C-alpha cells in the first residue's frame, strides 16, 4: 500500500481505534478524563496526518471488494483521495480536535461515566465523518451518512434524562431520515441505470455522455433530497434549531462545521453528475437562497444565543447550496471551509458565555465585555467574519458565492442572498451589542473561561484571520470574473447591517419594539418559525399515529377477533356435543344402529 493511500487510511483509522478502545474497555471509558485524553490523542494523530496529506497534495484511489459478484463486485469499500477530500479531512480533524479539548473544560462537572460515553460518541462521529469524506462511491458514502446521523442522535441526546433533549434527538433523526429515503432511492435508481456506485466510473460515463438515462433529473433530485435533510435546507431545516439541546461543543462540531456540511460536500463531490441536469441545479440554487433568507429572518427575532447561531448556520448552508446550484461548487466549498472555522469559533465562544453566565438568553446577559474581554474579542472576530468584513476569511468566500450566483444569471437568488447578507450582519451585531455591551444584569459572577476553552477560541480566531489574509494575497478560488461592483456591495451591506444593529440596540435610537410592530405580520410568523414545526408535528400525529391506531384496531378486533371467535366457537361446540355422551348404553346402541343403517344405504346405493 502506498503512502498516498496509507496515510489517509491512518487518518480514518485512528478515531476508529479510539472508539473501539473506549467502547470495549469499560474501565477506561468510565475514567472520564482518561477517555477524553485517549480520544484527543487519537485525533491529534489524525490531524497531523491529515495536514501532511493535504500539504503534500496526495491523490489516490483504492477500493476493496465488499459484495462480490460475477462481472465485478456489486459493492466496494475504500478511499478516494483528492484535493477536495484532503481539505475536508483537515477541517474535520482540526475542528474535532479543538472541540474535544474544549469539552474537557466545558463538561468538567459531568460525572466520569457520562463523560467517557461522550468521548466514545465523539470518536465514533469523527470516524463516520471521515469515512463519508473519503468514500469512493455512493454506497459507502450512504453507510457513513447514516452512521453520522446516528452519532448526531446520540450526541444531541447526550443529556437524555432531559425530555427536551430526547425529543430533539428523535426529531433530528426523523427529519434527516426523510431526506435519506430520497437519497437511497436515488442511489439505487442510479445504480440500476448505470450498474455502478463508484464516483470515478460515474464521472467517466458522464464525460462520455453515456449517462443520458431517462429520468436522470429525477434521480439526481432524489439524491439531492439527502442533502436537503442533512444540510437543513427548506423544508427539512426544522431539526437544527432544536438540536441545540445538545452540549455546545457538540453544536460547534456537528451543527456548524462537519455533519451539516456533509450534504454540501456530497453535492460538490458529485458535481459532474449534477451538471448533467441543469434544472435540478437551478432548483438547488433557489432553495438554497430561499433557505438563507428564511433562516435569517428567524434569527432576527430569536433570543437564545445558540438558536441564533443555529439559524445562522442554516442560512450559511443555504449560501453554500446556492453556490453549488449556480455551478460554482468550489466557491460553495470554500465558504464551507471558512464557515466551518468561524462558526465553530462562534459556537465555542457562545459556550464560554453560557458556561459563565448560566443562561442562553441574551436578554439576560449584558455588558459581558468587561468581565470576559477575551471571549468578547474572539466573538467579535467571528461576527465580523460571518458578516463578511475583509480581511477576514468570510468576506472572500461570501463574495465568491455571490459572484458565482451572479455569473449564473440567477437574479432571484442573488437578490435574496444579498438581502440576507444585510440581515446576517444585523442579527449578529444585535447579539454582540446585547450580550457584550449595554447594561450588565445583576446575578451570576461572569468570569473569563479557563484556558482549555480559551485556547481553541484564540486558535480559531487566528486561523480565520490568517486564512483571510492568505486568500486576499492569493486571490482565493475561483478567481472568476466577478463584477467589479460586488466587493463594495457586500462590504456596504455588511456595514448597513452593523449600523442598523448599532442604532437599534446600542444607541437605542430606533426602538426595536416599534420596528417589530411595523413589521407585525413578518414578526409574528418569524417568531413562530413560520408554522413549519407545528405542521410537521401535526402531520406526524395525524398520519403516523392515526395509522398506528388503525393497525392497532385491526389487530385487536380483526386478528384477535378471529382467534376469539374460533375459541368461543370451539367451546360452544364442545358444550353442545357434550350431550351426546349421555352415559346410557341404550343411546349408544341407537348410534350403532344408525351407523349400520348408513352402511346399508351406502352399500345398496353405491352398488
Amino acid at each position: 500500500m502506498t503512502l498516498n493511500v496509507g496515510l489517509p487510511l491512518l487518518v480514518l483509522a485512528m478515531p476508529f481505534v479510539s472508539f473501539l478502545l473506549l467502547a470495549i474497555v469499560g474501565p477506561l471509558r468510565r475514567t472520564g478524563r482518561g477517555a477524553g485524553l485517549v480520544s484527543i490523542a487519537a485525533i491529534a494523530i489524525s490531524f497531523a496526518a491529515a495536514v501532511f496529506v493535504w500539504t503534500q497534495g496526495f491523490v489516490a484511489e483504492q477500493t476493496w471488494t465488499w459484495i462480490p459478484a460475477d462481472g465485478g463486485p456489486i459493492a466496494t469499500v475504500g478511499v478516494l483521495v483528492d484535493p477536495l477530500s484532503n481539505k475536508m479531512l483537515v477541517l474535520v480533524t482540526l475542528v474535532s480536535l479543538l472541540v474535544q479539548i474544549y469539552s474537557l473544560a466545558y463538561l468538567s462537572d459531568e460525572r466520569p461515566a457520562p463523560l467517557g460515553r461522550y468521548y466514545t460518541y465523539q470518536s465514533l462521529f469523527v470516524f463516520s465523518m471521515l469515512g463519508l469524506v473519503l468514500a469512493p462511491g455512493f454506497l459507502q458514502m450512504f453507510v457513513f451518512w447514516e452512521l453520522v446521523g446516528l452519532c448526531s442522535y446520540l450526541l444531541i441526546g447526550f443529556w437524555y434524562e432531559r425530555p427536551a433533549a430526547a425529543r430533539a434527538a428523535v426529531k433530528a433523526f426523523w427529519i434527516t431520515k426523510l431526506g435519506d429515503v430520497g437519497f437511497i432511492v436515488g442511489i439505487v435508481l442510479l445504480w440500476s441505470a448505470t450498474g455502478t456506485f463508484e464516483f470515478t466510473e460515474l464521472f467517466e460515463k458522464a464525460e462520455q455522455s453515456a449517462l443520458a438515462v431517462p429520468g436522470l433529473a429525477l434521480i439526481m433530485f432524489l439524491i439531492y433530497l439527502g442533502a436537503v435533510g442533512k444540510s437543513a435546507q427548506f423544508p427539512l431545516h426544522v431539526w437544527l434549531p432544536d438540536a441545540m439541546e445538545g452540549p455546545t461543543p457538540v453544536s460547534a462540531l456537528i451543527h456548524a462545521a462537519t455533519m451539516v456540511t456533509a450534504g454540501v460536500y456530497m453535492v460538490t463531490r458529485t458535481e459532474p453528475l449534477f451538471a448533467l441536469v441543469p434544472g435540478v441545479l437551478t432548483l438547488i440554487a433557489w432553495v438554497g437562497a430561499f433557505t438563507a433568507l428564511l433562516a435569517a429572518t428567524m434569527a432576527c427575532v430569536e433570543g437564545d444565543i445558540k438558536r441564533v447561531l443555529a439559524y445562522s448556520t442554516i442560512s450559511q448552508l443555504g449560501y453554500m447550496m446556492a453556490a453549488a446550484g449556480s455551478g460554482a461548487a468550489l466557491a460553495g466549498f470554500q465558504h464551507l471551509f471558512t464557515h466551518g472555522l468561524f462558526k465553530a469559533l462562534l459556537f465555542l465562544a457562545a459556550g464560554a458565555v453560557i458556561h459563565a453566565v448560566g443562561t442562553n438568553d441574551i436578554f439576560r446577559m449584558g455588558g459581558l465585555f468587561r468581565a470576559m474581554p477575551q471571549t468578547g474579542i474572539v466573538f467579535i472576530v467571528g461576527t465580523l467574519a460571518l458578516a463578511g468584513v475583509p480581511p477576514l476569511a468570510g468576506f472572500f468566500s461570501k463574495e465568491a458565492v455571490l459572484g458565482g450566483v451572479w455569473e449564473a444569471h440567477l437574479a432571484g437568488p442573488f437578490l435574496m442572498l444579498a438581502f440576507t447578507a444585510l440581515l446576517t450582519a444585523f442579527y449578529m451585531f444585535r447579539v454582540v451589542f446585547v450580550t457584550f455591551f449595554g447594561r450588565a444584569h445583576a446575578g451570576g459572577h461572569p468570569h473569563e473561561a479557563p484556558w482549555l476553552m480559551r485556547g481553541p477560541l484564540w486558535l480559531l480566531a487566528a486561523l480565520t484571520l490568517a486564512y483571510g489574509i492568505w486568500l486576499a494575497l492569493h486571490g482565493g478560488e475561483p478567481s472568476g470574473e466577478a463584477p467589479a461592483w460586488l466587493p463594495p456591495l457586500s462590504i456596504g451591506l455588511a456595514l448597513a447591517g452593523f449600523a442598523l444593529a448599532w442604532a437599534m440596540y446600542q444607541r437605542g435610537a430606533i426602538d426595536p419594539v416599534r420596528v417589530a410592530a411595523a413589521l407585525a405580520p413578518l414578526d409574528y410568523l418569524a417568531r413562530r418559525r413560520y408554522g413549519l414545526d407545528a405542521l410537521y408535528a401535526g402531520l406526524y400525529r395525524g398520519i403516523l399515529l392515526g395509522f398506528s391506531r388503525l393497525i392497532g384496531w385491526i389487530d385487536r378486533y380483526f386478528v384477535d377477533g378471529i382467534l376469539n371467535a374460533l375459541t368461543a366457537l370451539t367451546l360452544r361446540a364442545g358444550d353442545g356435543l357434550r350431550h351426546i355422551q349421555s352415559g346410557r348404553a341404550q343411546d349408544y346402541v341407537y348410534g350403532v344402529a344408525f351407523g349400520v343403517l348408513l352402511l346399508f344405504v351406502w352399500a345398496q346405493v353405491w352398488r
Partner: protein
Amino acid sequence: MTVETVGFWVVAAVLLASSLAVVLTPNLFHAVLYLAAALVATGAIFLLLAQPFLFAVQLLLYAGGVVTIVVFAIMLTERLVGQRIRQTSRHVVNGAIVAAAVFAGIAGFLLRSPLATPPPGPAADATIAIGRALVGPFAVTLELLGVLLVTALLGALHFARGEE
C-alpha cells in the same frame, strides 16, 4: 303343502309371537318365560333344518341354562327391592322405527341377492361329523372355548363375592 312347509309356518308363527311377547310384555318374569318359548321354537327350526344335535344343545343350554340363570337374577334383584319389578318401555316409537329400518335394510339385501332355492338333498346325520370336526380341525377353538368358560366362571365368582 308338504309337512315341511306347514311345520315351518307354524314354528315361525310361534317364534315370532313369543319374540314379540318377550319385548313387549310389562312383566319381566313373563318375559323370561316367553323367551323360553322362543328358544324352544328356535330349536324346532333347527330340527326343520335337519340338525337334531343342535336342537338338543339348544334345549339344554339355552332353554335350560340361560333361562334358569335369568330367572335367578330376576328373583335376586326383585327380592332385594321387595316388590315386583315393573317393566315399562321407553321411546317405543323411536325404537320401532329404528328396528324396522334395520329390518328393511337386511331385507333389501336379501331381495337383491340371487339366493337359489334348490331343495337340498336328504340330510345325513351330522352328529358324527360334528364330533369329528370338533376334535379335528376345530380342536384349538374348542380349547379356547374352554378357556373362555373358565374366565367367565372366574368373573362371575368375583362379582358374586360382593364386598367382603
